[in-house]
Every structure is written in structure tokens, then in C-alpha cells.
């Protein structure tokens, strides 16, 4: 399987109204996604996962770093070339209520990607729209209606239809089921899985919901305060979490069968991206932090078993003499 996406040392800093004060939303992130797989990015509020998604799609301009998509370096493209590249990478947003233009008919919404990129003619576009709406499980008569006439789950299907109509290679889904009820959630997750197989899609699935991530991802990256703290195959991460934050995160999720065992309750609040702690950003809340954690930032490296990449001094002790 080839590498569809390669992100290298991506960072994003936001300027604040106070002169000179910047917020580092994403710090030096590198990752690769193989074609046909799903990368799950999981983390809590303020970890930067949504920002990362938007950086990859170039909805935000990165402060540093490069993105290679399908062999093309996105930074080197002109505005026009970038727009044409967008045909291959699409996004499904979190809020199905606000990601649809309330004044557009569903048919127009779904046909828009075809209009923008001048695909086919009106007749062929109409046909494609009809095929796509049926594919996502809605009826043809939905095409003449407006977004507000549909429920959350149905609107999300419309968003998915809009995202797949150009047959993209990569879809970034930013919390696509978080606003939906559990019973609707499973419908949408199944739809996404089917489409992945049919259209040979690659997904980047962003969520704070570990159960959903577990279900749909092949690889998982755990983010904390703008950095990836652990990355591994899905099964490996959930069965054998390495980083203390990952462990706490997994234990915090309420389980139906109560099999989570004793809960690891983290002290303190979610950290503020404005005040990133020194050294390892997790050290103030880490139950097993040692002295070096507050001064030296750990790097994301494979652990001794080679299965997971972890950024933790306890897992990957720094070499003698320091870096």
C-alpha cells in the first residue's frame, strides 16, 4: 500500500490580540497515512485535532511544515492548482446543522462539487447526484427539499454525499457522529465503512469518542496539547496502551460491562493551550512523572517492542548525557 498522505513537522501558531502572545495549537506533527486505511485521531478539547484536520486540507495555513498528498507537495501549488487538488480530498464536518447552506436545495448542495470543477454536463451531473443520494440511504424526493427539513442523521448523510460525489481519495471526518444519537451514530458509521470499501477511500477520522475511534480505525494517534503522544495500530493501542495519558483516557471511558477496572482519575484540569507546560506537556498531570519530565521534551519514537510510537521518557528513556 502506498503512502497517500505524508505530513512532516506541521505546526500552527495563532496570533492573539495581545501583541506577541501566540498560541501553539499544533506542534511539530509528522504522520503518514497509507491508502485504503483509516487513521483515527483522538484527543480532548484543546488538543488541536480539529486544527490538524484543517491544516491537512489547507483550510488553514500552516506556520511550518509540509504536506504531501498523492505525491504532490501542497505548499508548492498555486491557488488555482490547489483548488483543483481539492477534488481528491474532502471533509465531513462535525455539525450537520451548520455545514449545509440553509438556502440551498439538497440537489444543489450535492451537485456543487461537480459545478465547481465543471465535471460533465448538466444531464450527467443530475444523474450522478441521483445515484449518490440513493447511495447514502436517502430517497430521490429529498433532492427537492431544504436542510432544515431533515434530522441530524439525515443531514450528515447529505454531507457525506457531497463529500463522495467527486470520488475523492481522502476524506477527513471531523467528529462526524458526535452530534448524533447513539442509534443514528451506528447507521452513519456503517455507511462510512461501506463507502470506504466500495470507493477505496482513505479516512482520517477525528473524534474525542474512543469507542467510535476503536471501531473504525486501523491506526490511532492520540493527541495532547498539540502533539501526538502515542501512535499505533488500533488493536495494539487499545489492548496495550503505553503513554500514561492514553492509559488514563482509556480508563476514563464508561463501559457498559463495567470491565474498565479501577479508574485512573487524572488530577487537574485540561491544560490551556496558552500555557503549555515545560518539558513534557503532560507532566503536571502525569501520575508517574519523574524529574526529567519537567525539563526535557520527549520525542515521538518507537518503543522497545517496536509496535507503538510513544513520546514518554519512561517508555523511551533519554540517552545518557541528554539530547
Amino acid at each position, binding site marked *: 500500500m502506498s503512502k497517500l498522505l505524508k505530513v512532516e513537522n506541521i505546526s500552527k501558531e495563532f496570533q492573539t490580540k495581545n501583541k506577541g502572545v501566540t498560541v501553539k495549537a499544533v506542534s511539530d506533527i509528522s504522520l503518514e497515512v497509507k491508502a485504503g486505511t483509516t487513521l483515527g485521531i483522538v484527543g480532548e478539547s484543546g488538543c488541536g485535532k480539529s486544527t490538524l484536520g484543517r491544516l491537512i*486540507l489547507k*483550510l488553514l495555513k500552516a506556520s511550518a511544515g509540509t504536506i504531501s498528498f498523492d505525491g504532490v507537495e501542497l505548499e508548492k501549488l498555486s491557488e488555482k492548482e490547489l*483548488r*483543483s487538488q*481539492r*477534488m481528491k480530498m*474532502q*471533509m465531513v*464536518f*462535525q*455539525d450537520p446543522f*451548520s*455545514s*449545509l*447552506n*440553509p*438556502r*440551498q436545495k439538497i440537489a444543489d448542495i450535492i451537485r*456543487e*462539487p461537480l459545478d*465547481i*470543477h465543471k465535471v460533465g454536463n448538466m444531464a450527467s451531473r443530475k444523474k450522478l447526484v441521483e445515484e449518490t443520494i440513493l447511495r447514502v440511504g436517502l430517497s430521490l424526493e429529498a433532492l427537492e427539499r431544504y436542510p432544515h427539513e431533515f434530522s441530524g442523521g439525515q443531514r450528515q448523510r447529505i*454531507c457525506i454525499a*457531497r463529500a463522495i460525489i467527486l470520488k475523492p481519495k481522502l476524506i477527513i471526518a471531523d467528529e462526524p457522529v458526535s452530534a448524533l444519537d447513539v442509534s443514528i451514530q451506528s447507521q452513519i458509521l456503517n455507511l462510512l465503512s461501506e463507502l470506504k470499501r466500495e470507493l477505496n477511500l482513505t479516512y482520517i477520522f477525528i473524534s474525542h469518542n474512543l469507542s467510535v475511534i476503536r471501531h473504525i480505525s486501523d491506526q490511532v494517534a492520540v493527541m495532547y496539547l498539540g502533539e501526538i503522544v502515542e501512535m499505533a495500530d488500533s488493536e495494539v493501542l487499545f489492548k496495550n496502551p503505553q503513554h500514561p495519558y492514553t492509559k488514563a483516557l482509556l480508563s476514563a471511558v464508561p463501559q457498559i460491562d463495567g470491565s474498565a477496572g479501577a479508574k485512573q482519575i487524572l488530577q487537574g484540569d485540561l491544560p490551556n493551550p496558552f500555557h503549555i507546560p515545560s518539558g513534557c506537556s503532560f507532566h503536571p498531570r502525569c501520575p508517574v512523572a519523574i524529574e526529567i519530565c519537567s525539563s526535557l521534551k520527549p520525542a515521538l519514537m518507537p518503543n522497545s517492542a517496536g509496535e507503538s510510537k510513544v513520546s514518554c521518557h519512561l517508555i523511551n528513556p533519554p540517552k545518557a548525557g541528554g539530547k
Partner: protein
Amino acid sequence: MKETWKKLRKKKLAMFGLVMVSLIVLVAIFADFFAPYDPSEQFFDGLTLQGAPVGPSEKYLLGTDLLGRDLLSRIIYGARTSLIIGIIANGVAILIGTTVGLIAGFARGKTGTVLMRFTDLMMAFPALLLAITLAAIFAPSLLIVALVIALVNWVQIARVIYTQTIAISEREFVEAAISLGATPVRILRKHILPQLVPTILVWATLGIATTVLLEATLSYLGIGVRPPTPSWGNIIFENQNYFQSAPWLVFFPGMAILLLALSFNLLGDGLRDVLDPTQRGKR
């Protein structure tokens, strides 16, 4: 659209406004049909033996003015003048204001700041003073008066459109359009502008009231529409000396202005409530 009409029908005041507006427009368009006499025709029996205007009578329903012309006919034709100016002025103001606000709100950055500072500057000028100055510079005709009013009124619209455009630009469906590869022009045209339609519509109706009032003020001050073309403002202007002896000459055109402004205001208010349920809270 249908839903909007249904909701509007329920609002009695707005419907009253709509009916009145329609009536006034109808009368203005078919002035030739409705007006009993030619508005510039001076009647011999339109003045008393002393040369004073005649009060409301069977022949001259609203009386006559200082030159013996039928007031009713002049008011009816005046409707035409006031409305034409109102519509042109408002239309131009909306055009300029929307363009400025839209570009400033969407482009933001330096362009946006420059445009909005310019707008602020324009807003700082007292509208009336500006109108008087402009009217004094350019020889007044119907069109000039309309343009002068437009130049004064566009600022408010620009500000409102500016803030709304910023708010709309932040909404997720605009981000979605960008991610689909839409050009900025397409986004403005297909995604942002349609959301502004309710605001523009409301300002269009409310704006007519203010533009008509402004026109009346300018005409009253003598720098608006020049006689003999009747406009409600200049009727009052011409006849102001007869205020005490022939009060109907001031009263009736004044009532006409009041009625037009009120009707458009009621209609505009109703439209705003109906088109923007988040503001007032749906029941």
C-alpha cells in the same frame, strides 16, 4: 417563500402596512387615472377673490394651493415623485452599501479595515448637512436628489452587511464550500449573498421610509425637487407661508408622508420578524 408569506399573513400590522404600501404604489403608478385634475393646472376658481387658496370643497377635495392648483392631484403626482426618488435612492444605497460591506466583511485584513474606516468617516458626517452640501453643488433634478440621498444612506447598510458577512463567513457551510474548491467569487455569490437577502429586504422596505422623509426634508429646505414637479416635501415648502391661514396645505402632504413612512415601517418590521426568527424568538 411560501412559509414567509404564511407567517407574514398572521401579522396584522404588517399586513396593514402591505396593503397601504400597495395602495400608494398603485395610486402613484396610475396617477393619471386617479388624479382628478392636471397637477400644474391653475384654476381660476382655485383662488378666492383675495387670491388666497381655497379650502376642501366639493370640486377640490383637498383644497387648492397658493397658485390655485388642486392639492389632491398634486399629492397624487407627488406620490409618484416621492416613490421614484425613494426607490432609486434606496436601490443605489443598498447597492453601494452591500458591495462595500460584503467586500470588507469577506476580504477582511487591510482591505476590510480601509473600507470600514472610510465608512466610519462617512458616517461621521451629519447626513443632512452632507445632503445639503451635495445638493447645493449639483443642480437638482430628480436623479440628483435620489443620488444625494443614496450617498448619505449607504453607510448604515454597509455596516450591517459588514458584520453579517463576517458572521456568515465563519459558518461551517462556507468552510465546506472552500474545502470543495469554490472560488471566493462563487462563495460570495452562492453562499454569502443569499443569506443576506432577508437583511437587504428589510432594509429596502424600511429604507424607503427614511429616503422619502429625507427627500421631503430636502425639498422643504428648497434644495430638493424643484417645482412645478410636485413632491410632498416641496408642496409643504411652497405653501409654508399659508400654514396658519390654509393649514390643509401643510396637513395633507404631511399626512401622506406620515402614512407612507408608517406603512413601509410596519411592513419592514413584520418582514424582519418573519425572516429572522432568531432575533425575536419564534412563538
